[in-house]
């Protein structure tokens, strides 16, 4: 199986990148190909990078409270490019009601503080295996 390609991105103006960097390193150590965008990215910059880098997964990290604006925006832009096969997942400080609302509109799982990195690695691997099976 080819390695899973993941874009780890920090949308918006929030500068908290400890989680994003720890996750990026953990995914890399788990054998994935990881691209990290750096801070202060617009949804447009993230969608463009995702398409150009032909990633399987976009991992968004948001601790600023702007998730209800930024996550759907990334999703719309990626879909507009016909790439609704890309998994959009992520984490941060996101209240449960908002997590439910975002998952309802087709966003993947959103992980809160204290999640072991093994849990999200497993989630991404399972999602990828299922997608590959469907495509085969």
């Amino acid at each position, binding site marked *: 199986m080819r390695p899973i390609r993941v874009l*780890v991105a920090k949308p*918006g*103006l*929030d*500068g*908290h*990148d*400890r989680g*994003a*960097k*720890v996750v*990026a*390193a*953990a995914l*890399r150590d788990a054998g994935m190909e*990881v691209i*990290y*965008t*750096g*801070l*202060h990215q*617009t949804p447009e910059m993230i969608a463009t990078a995702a398409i150009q880098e032909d990633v399987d997964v976009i991992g968004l990290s948001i601790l*600023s*409270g*702007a998730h*209800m*604006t*930024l996550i759907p925006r990334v999703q719309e832009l990626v879909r507009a490019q016909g790439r609704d096969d890309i998994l959009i997942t992520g984490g941060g*400080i996101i*209240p*449960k009601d908002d997590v439910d609302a975002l998952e309802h509109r087709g966003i993947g799982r959103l992980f*809160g*503080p*204290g999640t*072991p*990195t*093994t849990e999200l690695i497993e989630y991404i691997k399972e999602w990828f295996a299922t997608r590959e099976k469907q495509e085969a």
Partner: protein
Amino acid sequence: MTKLKSPSSKSAADSELIATIEEQSAELRLLRKEVAEWRKKYEKGELRDIAFTNSEKEIQAIYTPLDAAETSAEALGMPGFYPYTRGIHPTGYRGRLWTMRQFAGFGSARDTNERYKFLLAHGQTGLSVAFDFPTLMGYDSDHPRSEGEVGKCGVAISSLADMQMLFDGIPLDQVSTSMTINGPAVILYCFYIAAAEKQGVDSTKLRGTIQNDILKEYMAQHAWVYPIEPALRLIVDCFEWSAEHVPQWNTISISGYHIREAGATAAQELAFTLADGFTYVERGIARGLNVDTFAPRLSFFWDIHNDFFEEIAKLRAARRIWARHMKERYGAKDPRSLMMRFHSQTAGVTLTAQQPMNNIIRVAYQAMAAALGGTQSLHTNSMDETLALPTEESVQVALRTQQILAYETGIPNVVDPLGGSYYVETLTTELEREAESLFEQIAQIGGVVRGLETGWLQRRINESAARQQWEIEQHRRIIVGVNDFVTDEPELTIELLKVTEQTEREQKERMAKMRAGRDNARVEKKMGALREAAATSRNLMPYILDCARAYCTLYEIRAAMEAVFGAYREPVFF
């Protein structure tokens, strides 16, 4: 730490001295023997199968006068005396308690103004402004990059008009205000000064702090605007101008908090923060300023993490290192230049989303460490901060935590009550040595600015963060409710605060009205003057203040200088 008795007469003194030395060496022999006997028993004992460490270094099972002897009496001193290890005030908290200063801000200036009045009514003694992300980055509420972020993580302040509303009904000569702002710090500072003018309060009467610590932004917190060199110039402009015009203001709060939160160990927090402080001092001196004109207004900000004794030792070591370097390296003479005054905040990163009530207990222990370390002011985090902005109820519990500490525990009755503890003194000295060794490494890589450009400092912090995550996942470090003592989570019963999109809408409307109502010819003229001055080496503070008075917005002022300075580009890696 052994003290010789003061002799009464010369001949008597000699024999007394000999007797004392003999007595002491007998004591020492006895002590060594006792320690050896204890060690035999200890090694036969059964120990729990965990690592006994703080940060990443092993600690001993017991500390004795043999360890504490490494610390000389001179290194300790008395409270209020050089090198201030035991505190900067001879009276400790008997003279004045620490300032209880809860960081707050959300929604519009009007919403936050109400929260401030609530906090003041409940006995809080200083204000502390949390700005939203657009403000922290120098964007107005109606800028496209601000969409979805206005008022979310703090209050939105885009011009003097917002600042006036924020402090409506709060006389600015009666409170001290701390503002957490860095990239565009001097702009918000000028809004504040101009808002005071509108209240009829002269700038010389203002008391408070702007964080204004850009080096730690590049290192850890990431709310930057300009490249490093022009950003440092603005900070020195602020030191120079404020010494005359706002003499009671703390022109910078050199912050370890964000460095620690980003993953640094206690020793790294201590060393990187102090190295930042030395860099600012060197820049001030390079401008030709006398160190004693600006050093008394430099203040610090520390993170108070879980390891109780290490945190106390860190605060004690910080005071000692600062005093010594300021005196010996930078030739400061005014005692106030040598005294490290600092704010503390309990460590946000230690709060857990799981079993959030447990956070109250974590915060209480951390607050106790801050008090035992002699902090000048304190913010205690609220239990719900890993979930959302804190509610009024949880902020009140956090404030009450400080009040119980201050009024019920008896801790403030004695100055530096852990002074002389074999363990705490040894830890203090060890942290000081670790910091000195990190200073040497920073010097070898070419200093702090070079360390930021190459990412050396950021990498050290990332490595520590990754190691801590690994330790938690490997169960080498237990976090109650997260990787042990886990319960099936019931649905959250505490109520969360939500900032609605209405704030952003209303803020945009207010901005449009303000822009239409102001004298736009004057705005253009003041911004032109600022742009022109930015290209020279003149002090920019008077120009920025003039822009603020003319109701130029935050982003307009940011952009005027950006036209000359350019923008910072982050070196990206993980």
